């Protein structure tokens, strides 16, 4: 800026008006040089505390070159990353072309399995790139990343695991930590059994909720000693090559060990908690539909609402628990509407009406 001003002064006087030549605020004819510029860094003067004087060797300082060419830019990290991504894209494109995977015909591209990326948010990238990620910059970055993602899809489908892993290593740096949660949004949470084989599910109806823990009833297995003895006999016969006379087949009636389910609701047996038979039947309905009446023990904590709401919530909780133990029942229960949360709630009262729908008595006059 000062350079500009001095150049004004150096121009021929005839060209400029008189007040421009000699300005009140103009300081000197000499250009202003900051004192720091006058310091000779290679040959500094004697240090203040230094009394000895004498010759000192001039300090040899070699300025190290910056790590990256974008060091002197205002956003070095950002530009570096852009360059890296573009390089990566270039390399991958080259590799895919070599493998004759690019250009991909339309039908092949359409048949690729989906690979939904979930990139970091603008704020997260701001921290990563050490610069404010405006929309333009964010879009630029995500465009490059999406391109890489496309190549990843192609590489993975084609079976180029090395290439795909390489792309993954780059892309994973920019993927959001909430990717799984985002992709699983709207889907039913998968219920996992704990170390004892118990499932924990929740059922709801109106304002009632039921927390249900289910565990399979332990089946005692008994091996009949008779079967073992018969097998041994057979082996002996075969060893000696003696032919056995055809024996009449006896139908053995197997003793089926019947187990029963125990259902505890708020630590009380089902018949003590629900006195109405209809409520009790609702609790066992999922078992009847699935055909597993004596197979599971249930412990539930129900809260809120009234008896019917609580029994319906318990029904849903038990149904979800059964699906957790036996995933093959999913479709059957969905069709029987057992796992469905009944969306019906108490309708609000409206102004001008006595209740939700009930109107006041109509008066002619």
């Amino acid at each position, binding site marked *: 800026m000062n350079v500009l001003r001095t150049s004004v002064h150096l121009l021929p006087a005839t060209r400029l008006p008189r007040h421009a030549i000699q300005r009140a605020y103009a300081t000197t004819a000499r250009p202003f040089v900051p004192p720091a510029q006058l310091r000779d860094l290679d040959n500094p003067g004697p240090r203040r505390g230094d009394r000895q004087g004498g010759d000192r060797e001039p300090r040899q300082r070699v300025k190290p070159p910056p790590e990256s060419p974008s060091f002197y830019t205002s956003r070095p990290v950002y530009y570096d990353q852009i360059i890296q991504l573009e390089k990566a894209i270039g390399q991958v494109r080259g590799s895919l072309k070599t493998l004759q995977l690019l250009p991909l015909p339309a039908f092949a591209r359409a048949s690729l399995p989906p690979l939904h990326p979930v990139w970091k948010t603008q704020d997260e990238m701001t921290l990563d790139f050490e610069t404010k990620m405006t929309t333009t910059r964010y879009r630029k970055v995500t465009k490059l990343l999406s391109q890489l993602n496309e190549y990843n899809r192609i590489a993975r489908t084609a079976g180029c695991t090395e290439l795909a892993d390489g792309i993954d290593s780059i892309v994973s740096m920019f993927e959001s930590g909430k990717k799984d949660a985002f992709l699983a949004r709207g889907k039913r949470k998968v219920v996992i059994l704990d170390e004892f084989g118990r499932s924990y599910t929740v059922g709801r109806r109106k304002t009632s909720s039921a927390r249900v823990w289910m565990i399979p009833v332990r089946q005692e297995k008994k091996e009949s000693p008779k079967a073992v003895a018969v097998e041994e006999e057979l082996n002996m016969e075969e060893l000696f090559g003696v032919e056995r006379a055809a024996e009449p087949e006896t139908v053995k009636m197997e003793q089926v060990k019947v187990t029963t389910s125990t259902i505890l609701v708020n630590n009380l047996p089902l018949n003590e908690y629900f006195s109405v038979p209809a409520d009790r039947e609702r609790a066992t309905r999922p078992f009847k539909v699935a055909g597993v*009446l004596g197979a599971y023990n249930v412990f539930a904590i129900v809260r809120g609402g009234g008896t019917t709401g609580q029994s319906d919530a318990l029904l849903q909780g038990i149904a979800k628990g059964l699906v957790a133990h036996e995933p093959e029942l999913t479709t059957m229960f969905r069709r029987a509407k057992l796992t469905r949360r009944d969306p019906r709630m108490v309708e609000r009262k409206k102004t001008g009406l006595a209740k939700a729908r009930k109107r006041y008595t109509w008066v002619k006059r």
Partner: protein
Amino acid sequence: MAVTNLTEPIFQSETRNSTLILSKFTPENITKKNIGLAAEFSLPENDPVRIFGLPKKMLLEFRILSKPCSVVRGVTVETKELLDNAKERSSLDMRVVLTGRSGCGKSYLLLQAVEYCKQNGWIVLYIPRATNLVNSTTPYVYDLRTQIYSQPTFAYQTLQRMLTVNRPTLDALELQTALVLEKQTVPAGTTLSALINIALKDKSKASCMVILETLLKELSEQTKYPVLVAVDEFQALYNKTMYRDPHFNTIAPYHLSMPRLLMEYASGRRSFAKGAFLGAVNDSDPMYPMPLELRDALQIEYMRPMSPYDKRSAGIAEYTKGLRALSVPEKLTLAEATSLFEIWMKDRALATVNPDTTFLSKYVESGGNPRDFVWKGILSTIEA
């Protein structure tokens, strides 16, 4: 159309043969092997059930069923063994109260014990509804001699019933000492049935209480036949009665003759030389709940935290000494439940496509509780 005009065979339900064919309830059938056996009560003319009556809920159930029957349970066999031991011993050692959750089968077990004893030749006194002794339904009059309120009508009915039920055994027993009454003296050597007839002939029923007491005294001294006193709704005897004295104060149960008599045999103040006392509690009637004194004596858990400062009647607590609790299991075993289900199936109570599923679902829903299994399960179901 009048009922008599309905002559079509479809309307003749009472004469139609029942499809319910069961074994008989005999002492030989009560064994460990037979646990789960459905047994029919053969009710001859002098059966305790016909003469003494039944608790309300059991009466209703027997009306619905085509035949009165029950299932031999594990606890039945246990009770049978207890009674067999008690046959030769004093009733002091065998004063048992059947306890358990509501609907677990106490009254049924008591009935099975009564039937077993009757068929084994015991002398039986069965009181199916002890609440009728304390709810002011039977007349009472103050007796100067004993200084308590006597209940002559109930005494009269009890004597009548005891005679009908136990006539052969009472004919064989005789009065040991002469009895002096107001109008006559009954000499020693009279048969006990003749003694009872004296009371029954008296229209004023004044001497009934005395004769009942004498009868029981004779029965407690004799050793030929063991005696069973069975009381259902036993806890009503230990609650406040509905009776009022002339000053409108509540009369305590031990100031009424019949409850006092039963409580004395229960507490061991009087005892039979050979015999037993069996009681069964009932929690169907909130007017006569389980009192604190009985809970203490039988060591039954409290419904809410209890402290030593809660009111307990010392007089009533005296009559709870020495009572033993026999806990009836709250759940039916699968074998017993299966048997019970089959009784109702054969009696056409259910029209089900899949009896196995229905059975197991009702068992799970009722949690094995017998009353809930039958009444809220089998009889109240709306499912196929």
